[in-house]
């Protein structure tokens, strides 16, 4: 007779076995969790117009020159001849310059300014004066500055006057060149 050993005696699981069981359980939970995203879903496109940004721009339009001398009335100077004009004390040279202003935006407002700083040579500043007005367009906002809103966009009639002081004595200020290309028209969106 052969003696047998009963291997069915209950044994406590080892730590290794416990670890394996925990990993298996976690994996099962993860798989189950992934499956929870597979519920119903739908989406609806919003029907609305595109949103477009506005615009702000500035361009030179037509210009007309006139010269009002110390003697005689104002005379229109054809643009082609302006380079031949020689101003003398007492003269007022006027440029009616249209500015094409683009202002697009529901809330947009802008400040139009003109900087004449570099037009007159510093050594001759006592004899010449450059002034700027924008007619009835916009609201004055300081020296040579005007506040415009969207309703003011379009052609803004700017007037530039160059005055040669009639009190200029001797031969002061002769043969002086004023550089109008040094004029800066600037249109800046208003911050407040």
């Amino acid at each position, binding site marked *: 007779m052969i003696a047998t050993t009963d291997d069915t005696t209950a044994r406590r699981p080892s730590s290794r076995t416990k670890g394996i069981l925990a990993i298996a359980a976690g994996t099962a939970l993860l798989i189950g969790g992934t499956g929870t995203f597979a519920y119903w879903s739908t989406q609806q496109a919003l029907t609305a117009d595109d949103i477009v940004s506005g615009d702000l*721009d500035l361009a030179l339009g037509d210009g007309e020159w006139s010269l009002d001398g110390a003697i005689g009335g104002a005379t229109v100077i054809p643009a082609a001849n302006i380079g031949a004009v*020689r101003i*003398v004390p007492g003269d007022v040279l006027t440029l009616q*310059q249209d500015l094409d202003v683009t202002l697009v935006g529901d809330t947009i407002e802008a400040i139009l300014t003109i900087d004449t700083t570099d037009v007159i040579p510093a050594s001759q500043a006592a004899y010449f004066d450059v002034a700027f007005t924008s007619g009835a367009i916009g609201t004055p906002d300081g020296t040579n500055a005007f506040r415009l809103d969207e309703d003011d966009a379009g052609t803004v009639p700017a007037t530039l006057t160059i005055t040669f002081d009639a009190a200029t004595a001797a031969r002061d200020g002769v043969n002086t060149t004023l550089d109008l*290309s040094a004029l800066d028209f600037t249109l800046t969106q208003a911050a407040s």
Partner: protein
Amino acid sequence: MRTMRTGAVIGVALALVAGATSAQALWSATLAGPAVPVRSGDLAITASWPNGAPTWGPLLPGTATADQILRVSSTGAGTTLRWAVGAAATIPAAAQPHVTFAAWIGACGTGTPVGQGWPAAGSFTAGQTVDLCVRASLAAGAPQTLSGAPLIQGVTVTATQRSS
């Protein structure tokens, strides 16, 4: 706690600076004026004796020099420039009560006296030339002390811009 408070203050300051910087980034467009040079003119003249420099002989009391033509030309420029001409002689003080110098537009004596500026309302334009007739005379009652003395030491021509 102090470190946290300091950090919060710095953070707020940085946020304010960032906000202020972004507020400057508004739209702007700049345009240069028309590329047209505007020039001033000039009032310059030249004067000459078209018949040669005068060789006036000694003046005796009650006599006058020969008539001389003095040509004045504007060499300046000015679109609206109008100018008047004048002529004067430099006469020593001692002779001034007795010496007369005069210039006329046209003939000496019968033309239009120029004086210190003619016409009163300027009619000469830039580039225009005008001839003056000039003459000097010594009064009949001139004193003996003027004998051999210089009576005219120079002639000055003046161009003056007119405003009316």
